[in-house]
C-alpha cells in the first residue's frame, strides 16, 4: 500500500463519513425533538435528490435553485409525515415501537412509489463546483466533495447554535424531554414535534442533494442511507446531533480503509463488526454520557 492510495482512501472515507453524518444528523434531530426513531430519514434524501434532479434536468434551472427545492421537499415531507401520520398515531396512545413500524412502512411505500413511477434507472445530479478535482499530494479530491464537507459542517454548526442559543431550539428540546413540563410553561408541544420532523426533513433533503452527485439516485437509496445514518447516529449518541458527525466519520473511514486493506466486498462486515465492538465498550456512544446533553 502506498501513501497516495492511503490518502485517497482517507479522503473517500471522510467524504462518505460526512454523508452518513448528515443522514445521522437528521435522525438525531428527529429523535432529539420527538424521541421517535425515524426509519424513513433516508427517504427524505431520496425525495430531496429526486426533486433537485427534476429541477435541474427537466426544468433546466440552476443547481442552486434545485438545491433549495430539494431541501424544501425534504422539509415538506417531514412536516407532512408528522402532521398526517405521526400525530394521529400519537393521539391514539401509540407506543414507541409503533413509530418505528410506521416510519419503516412509509419508507418502503416511498421506495415502492419511486420504483413504480420512475423505475429502476439511476440518476445523478451535477456536482457543486463542476466535475473537476483538486490534487492533494497526488490524491484527487472532487470539488463537490469539498463543498459537501463545507456545507455539512456549516449545517452542523448552525444546528448546534440553534439548539443551544435559540428559544425555538430550546423549546423543541424541552418538549421532547418532558411534554407536561413543556406544556405548563407555554410551549406548544405538538407544534414542536412537527418542527422537529420539518428540521429532520430539511437536513435529509440537503443530504440527498449533496450525495446525489457521488452516489446515484435510485429507489433503494433511502433505506441504504438510513442504515448508515443509524449507525452514525447511534455510534455518536442519538441525543447529540454533533455525535452523528463523529459516528459518520468513524464509519466512513473504517469502510474505506477496509476496502483498501481487505476487499470492497467485506467493507460492511468489517465496519459493522467494529461498530459492535465499539458499542460493547462505549454503550452510550463514542462521546459517552456527555453526548446526551450536548448539542
Amino acid at each position: 500500500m502506498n501513501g497516495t492510495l492511503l490518502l485517497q482512501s482517507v479522503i473517500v472515507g471522510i467524504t462518505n463519513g460526512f454523508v452518513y453524518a448528515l443522514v445521522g444528523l437528521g435522525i438525531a434531530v428527529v429523535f432529539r425533538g420527538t424521541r421517535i426513531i425515524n426509519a424513513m430519514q433516508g427517504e427524505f434524501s431520496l425525495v430531496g435528490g429526486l426533486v433537485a434532479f427534476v429541477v435541474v434536468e427537466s426544468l433546466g434551472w440552476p443547481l442552486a435553485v434545485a438545491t433549495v427545492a430539494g431541501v424544501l421537499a425534504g422539509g415538506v415531507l417531514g412536516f407532512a409525515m408528522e402532521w398526517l401520520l405521526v400525530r394521529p398515531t400519537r393521539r391514539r396512545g401509540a407506543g414507541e415501537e409503533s413509530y418505528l413500524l410506521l416510519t419503516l412502512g412509509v419508507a418502503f411505500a416511498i421506495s415502492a412509489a419511486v420504483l413504480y413511477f420512475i423505475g429502476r434507472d439511476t440518476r445523478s445530479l451535477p456536482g457543486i463546483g463542476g466535475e473537476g478535482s483538486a490534487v492533494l499530494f497526488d490524491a484527487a479530491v472532487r470539488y463537490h466533495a469539498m463543498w459537501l464537507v463545507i456545507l455539512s459542517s456549516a449545517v452542523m454548526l448552525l444546528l448546534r447554535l440553534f439548539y443551544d442559543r435559540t428559544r425555538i431550539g430550546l423549546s423543541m428540546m424541552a418538549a421532547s424531554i418532558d411534554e407536561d413540563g413543556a406544556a405548563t410553561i407555554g410551549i406548544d408541544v405538538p407544534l414542536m414535534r412537527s418542527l422537529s420532523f420539518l428540521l429532520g426533513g430539511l437536513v435529509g433533503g440537503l443530504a440527498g442533494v449533496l450525495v446525489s452527485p457521488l452516489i446515484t439516485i435510485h429507489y433503494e437509496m433511502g433505506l441504504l442511507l438510513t442504515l448508515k445514518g443509524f449507525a452514525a447516529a447511534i455510534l455518536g449518541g442519538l441525543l447529540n446531533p454533533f455525535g452523528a458527525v463523529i459516528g459518520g466519520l468513524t464509519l466512513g473511514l473504517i469502510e474505506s480503509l477496509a476496502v483498501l486493506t481487505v476487499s470492497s466486498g467485506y467493507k460492511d462486515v468489517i465496519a459493522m463488526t467494529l461498530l459492535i465492538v465499539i458499542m460493547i465498550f462505549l454503550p452510550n456512544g463514542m462521546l459517552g454520557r456527555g453526548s446526551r446533553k450536548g448539542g
Partner: protein
Amino acid sequence: MLRAEAIEAGYGGLPVLKGLTFGIERNEAVALIGANGAGKSTLVRALCGLLPLTAGRILQDGREIQRLPAHQRTRHGIAVVLESRHLFGELSVRHNLELAAAHGERHGAARRKFRMDDVIGLFPFLGGRLDASVQLLSGGEQQMVAIARALLLHPELLILDEPSTGLSPKVVREIVGALATLRSAGMSILLVEQNVALAVEAADRAYVMSLGLIVQELDAAAWKGVLDDEALLQAYLGS
C-alpha cells in the same frame, strides 16, 4: 378568580373527578387536602389543561377556559408546579428558567412581572447554580427551580401539587417562607398537600377532597383548628 363547576375527568373511561365544584378568589391562598387516591393530582392536571374534562366547566374571571390546551392556559395567569416537578433535566437551570421567562414575556402586561432577579431573590441558591444541569440538583433545589420557573410565567394564580413531598424539613421551611412572600405580594395560591400542618401555615382556608369530590369546605376559623379535629383528619386523611 378561578372556579370549577361540576367537573368530571378521568383516565381511559374511568372517572376520577365526579362532578367536583370549588373556587378560589383573588389574593387568597387555598389548600386542597385529601388522602392518596382522592383525585387531587387529577384535579390539578384538569385545571392546568393536561387532562380534558368529560363534563363541567372551568371559569377564570368568568371566562370559560376548559377547552384551552395547557400551553394556552399559562397566558391566562395560571401557572402550575406539578407533582414530580417535570423539569427539563438535561438542560441547565438557566435554560429551564429562561424558557419560562421567554414564554412568560408574552403574557398579560397588567400582571406583576417576575424577573430572573426576583426569583433569585426568593431562592438565593439559584444565583450560584444557574449553569448546573438540573438533573444534578437535589430534590429540594429542583423544587425551588420548579417554583421559580412557574413564577417567570407571571401568574396570578400559582397551583402547587404536593410541593413538600420527599423534601427535608429545612427545604420545606424555605418553600413555606417563599409562599408567604408571594402571598404578601398578592398572589393567589392553590396548595395541594397531604402535609396538613404545612398547608395550615400557608393557606387561609381549605377544601377537603375524597373520592373525586369536595366533601368539606373549611373556612378560616375551622381551618386554623383543623389539626385538633381528629375526626376529620381520621375520616379523610387517615391520620
